[in-house]
């Protein structure tokens, strides 16, 4: 353990030390960025720190990031192919990623460099000692966003909201309160994912208490006949079969709009914010490339791209993100989880999941 701490300090001091060459490279990069005019990706100049990390990463040539789905991380390789051609990014996007990562690690085979997952799912990896401490503060992370002594950093949030097709439902018709979803006019008109509904409701339970939430969820499913499904709700929404998907997210709406839809979302009085986190794996096969990708993902440019491409916004540590401002302006209450509340949230999820799954 002390060795890890010691090496972390060394890495931190390395990453904080900016060489003259890196400063020159950074300056050159910024000149280049301003002179090349319009680019496919809205770029910001590399900071000297990033430029140095990039130089170090180049000999390794590749880096792999693992996460829950292609939706969340599948956009990164394309961005790198445009901006940082010397580093090829690959990704594994799978719900079985944790099992595979643990299995590979046990077999002493290491292919994952970075781990991007929800805080809850990251626990399985962190508790097995498969992540390394990293100097996230030097990359701009705030103390409240650094977990497990620096092994994990808060990246952004999956913000749960109802979504709807604007061609079928007017914005003003969509309820603003969760209780209003029990109105009979929404009977047979709502759909929810079997996973996302109890996850969202678990955050409501943190605010409302378990009993009230259970009662609300039963009424939603039994009285208002909300369809609970494992299929993509988008198909049911766009075909007009259902008008409101109640446990989707701002991100889902953004991704659908990116794909040419006209989808709206409604922030409700309580805003459940599932925490997504980033970590560098303990036995990363490309340590310098991993540091570079991690550092770049912490930049405001990457966070903006995360928000645009994957629909995940940082509302926990960035009060100035557009979504944070939207929540503040409407005086809504965001609910977060952290290492202290996640066990309770997980327990609520299990109990509410039983209702959703019948």
């Amino acid at each position, binding site marked *: 353990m002390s060795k890890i701490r010691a090496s972390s300090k060394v890495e931190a001091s390395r990453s904080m030390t900016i060489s003259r060459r890196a400063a020159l490279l950074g300056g050159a990069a910024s000149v280049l960025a301003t002179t090349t005019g319009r680019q496919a990706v809205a770029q910001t100049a590399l900071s000297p720190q990033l430029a140095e990390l990039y130089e170090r990463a180049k000999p390794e040539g590749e880096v792999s990031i693992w996460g829950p789905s292609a939706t969340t991380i599948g956009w990164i390789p394309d961005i790198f192919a445009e901006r940082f051609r010397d580093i090829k990014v690959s990704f594994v996007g799978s719900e079985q990623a*944790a*099992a595979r990562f643990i299995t590979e690690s*046990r077999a002493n085979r290491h292919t994952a460099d970075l781990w991007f997952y929800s805080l809850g799912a990251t626990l399985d990896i962190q508790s097995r000692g498969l992540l390394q401490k990293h100097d996230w503060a030097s990359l701009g992370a705030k103390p409240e966003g650094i977990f497990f002594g620096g092994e994990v950093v808060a990246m952004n949030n999956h913000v749960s909201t109802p979504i709807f097709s604007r061609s079928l439902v007017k914005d003003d018709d969509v309820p603003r309160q969760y209780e209003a979803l029990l109105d009979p006019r929404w009977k047979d008109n709502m759909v929810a994912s079997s996973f996302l509904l109890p996850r969202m409701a678990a955050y409501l339970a943190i605010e409302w208490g378990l009993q009230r939430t259970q009662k609300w969820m039963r009424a939603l499913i039994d009285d208002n006949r909300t369809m609970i499904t494992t299929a993509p709700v988008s198909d049911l929404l766009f075909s007009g079969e*259902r008008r409101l998907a109640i446990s989707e997210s701002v991100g889902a709406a953004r*991704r659908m709009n990116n794909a040419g839809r006209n989808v709206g979302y409604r922030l409700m009085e309580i805003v459940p914010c599932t925490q997504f986190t980033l970590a560098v794996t303990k036995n990363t096969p490309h340590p310098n490339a991993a540091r570079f990708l991690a550092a770049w993902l912490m930049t405001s440019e990457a966070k903006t791209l995360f928000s645009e491409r994957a629909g995940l916004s940082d509302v926990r540590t960035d009060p100035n993100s557009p979504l944070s401002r939207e929540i503040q302006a409407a005086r809504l209450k965001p609910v977060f989880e952290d290492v202290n509340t996640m066990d309770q949230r997980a327990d609520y999820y299990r109990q509410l999941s039983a209702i959703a799954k019948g």
Partner: protein
Amino acid sequence: MAGKLILAGAAVVAIYLISVPLIFLLGTAFRGPADFLPFEPGSRWTLDNLWDVYLDPALYRSILPNTAIFAAGSVTITFVIAFTLAWLVERTDLPFRSAIFTAILFPLLVPTVVLAIAWTLLCAPNAGWVNVAIRGLFGVQGPGPINIFTMPGLIICQGIASTPFVFLLLCAALRTMNPSLEEASNTSGASPIVTFFKITLPVLRPGILAPLILATLLTLEQFDLPLIIGFPARVNVFTTRLFFDLNAEDQLPKYGSAAAVALLFLVIAILLLALYNYMVRRAERYVTMTGKGYRPTRLKLGRWRAPALVFVGAYLTFAAVLPALVLLWTSLTGGVTWSEATLSWTAYEKLTSDPRFWKAVVNTFIVAACSAGIATLVGALISWQILRTRFIGRNLLDFISFLSIGIPSVIAGFAVMLLYLSLPIGVYGTIWILVLAYSYRIAVTTRLSRAALMQIHAELEEASSISGAGWLDTIRRIVLPLMTPALLSSFLLLFMVGFREFTIPMMLQSDDNWVLSVVMWRLQNDRQTGEAAAVGTLIVLFVIPIIFLMRRYLLAQQNND
């Protein structure tokens, strides 16, 4: 000597391919607790998984009764449709038989998830195209009249989805049946119905029982349609539990609990195998191919031709044409409502301009063809050993090969991952690990080959041997040509299953071994519905010519014989 080596090699390969996932499945069912993977330090031997699954009151109150109704209803529908279609295609003068044969297989080509979504778009109560049309026609208001999200809806959809599988198996049996027995019955004055029940069905017993058993087990293991159509109707079946155990979202998959669920499939497989062996214990009863030559004749449908075509047309409309239209429509419009739709080739252009897509196409063909080839070859050799030799372990071999059908894909995928992470032979992360992982499904080939071999009298091989031919020559020149329909059916079936296999490649994916189903899943997951549908459409376009050509080749070969 060469023959013995080949047979021994086949047995070793079969045991190797099946025992890895099988041992893993058996071991995992007794490992816990749930927050540890089964092989990890900290996990221990336990019966907790079995208690959790089998002492749950909901299992006996609703899940098992639902499962029984679902399986019985679906298999019945499947069999009625598949047998009628197979009989019409193989034993009658129905027109356009090759085209119909190919079209019937459509639901096998398309991932079941896509079929389920297509049927949902057609028959959902509020906005299903069929319901909208009916309401418009009769001026009815409100949802319905058809509601796919019910138990009958689930049964009908599953019955139709499983039809091509059973159809393909029954075609092989019907094609190799010598019609002289039926002709003798007819000549003796028996009516067609009497001939059918007294001659055709008894003679075809192995060829019918094998698909019946396979269809029952496969229906019990289905979770795509029960999840997409049954689950919203609150109809939970046994596999619903399996799905949620393996897709535990924020937690590690509960492999132990899933394996405990899968144990039931193994038990049912063992019981069905025992029943099968009991019912076909006197193999010589089913011999229809002897040394005497025969030429299959086709029944003239006469005035029944039109009703037969209507039946085939009705099946094809619901199982192939409408889903194909939905797939095509979605790929061209992104799946929006009629009023919002704009037709565009954008999805296809984006897809085909991506080199990763073409790499996935090549990978998919290699993996599906190689795994189907391996399983077919090994399965056929094993069947020959079981039926034609006195080898002591043949029953055990039969038993092990059959158990492969009770192993869920995700368990097989995980077991293969564990094995090849430990074996330093360089297949991990390549397409070859997918070939090895897919090839465990030998049960289909052994059942099919065995049923076909039972119809071939051993006297043909004896005659060849007496005439001086070696074992390899006899197999190559006598047995293989006679078994070609069954082997081709088996290959086609496994090729198509491999082409659309999703669970195993998701588990073992790397940048180098993407296959089309993974591409499709990623696009769907990314809400790029149009492009996901375009992949589905292209899968159909890639595979249909192959089926058509294979069918033509088979018919040409039969005509030459």
